């Protein structure tokens, strides 16, 4: 695989504990969606239904494409307030 861009992947809260890592640099090739970033970063298949996703700190859907230097975050339902 030819690596054409680097992205930053982040996991928070219970998801970070399940995956076992908070931050990960990922080298990816060509066009990629958030769903594919999840697969490559975790080695798991589909994103669980309750997991929320953000690219550069904006909520997105799993089919959102990512670009060089993006920060992609995965986290469980939020429980603040």
């Amino acid at each position, binding site marked *: 695989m030819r690596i054409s861009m680097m992205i930053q992947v*982040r996991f*928070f*809260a*219970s998801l970070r504990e399940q995956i076992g890592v908070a931050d990960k640099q990922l080298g990816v090739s060509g066009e990629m969606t958030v769903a594919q970033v999840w697969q490559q970063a975790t080695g798991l298949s589909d994103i669980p239904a309750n997991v*929320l996703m*953000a690219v550069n*700190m*904006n*909520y997105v859907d799993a089919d959102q494409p990512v670009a060089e230097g993006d920060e992609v*975050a995965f*986290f*469980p*339902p*939020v*429980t*603040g*307030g």
Partner: protein
Amino acid sequence: MHIEIINQVFDPYARLQDYQSTLSTAARQFGASNVFVGTMRDFNQGDQVQHMTLEHYPGMTEKELERIASEARQQWHILDGLILHRVGMIAPADSIVLVAIWSLHRLDAFEACRYIMEALKSRAPFWKKETLATGERWVDKNTAGFK
């Protein structure tokens, strides 16, 4: 509108009074202010909670709260607002969140404050982990705010 993430115990009413004393001349025309304060309980889902750790996503939290505030400004007439939220280690009876809105009339104050609070609960990236006598557990979701 001032938005702040706080990493230590705070007194919401002292902060409210301080902030109100700094309102602009225009904002001092307020005829209504509405305040919501959320406090940590020592009991949840039938268990005694000793303390709680609140994690957040620095950067996105502020960004999402700004977005929520801006949505509220588009829907209601808001003279000024204050949003404070605790993170870190929290003890029972500590304040967790303050949302205050100053408006000309009560409808805007009530509704904008409610909107911001409900949006914060469902969108702002904060997560609570409770410490019980038997160990730790993540709070898995927030309860619905509307009946």
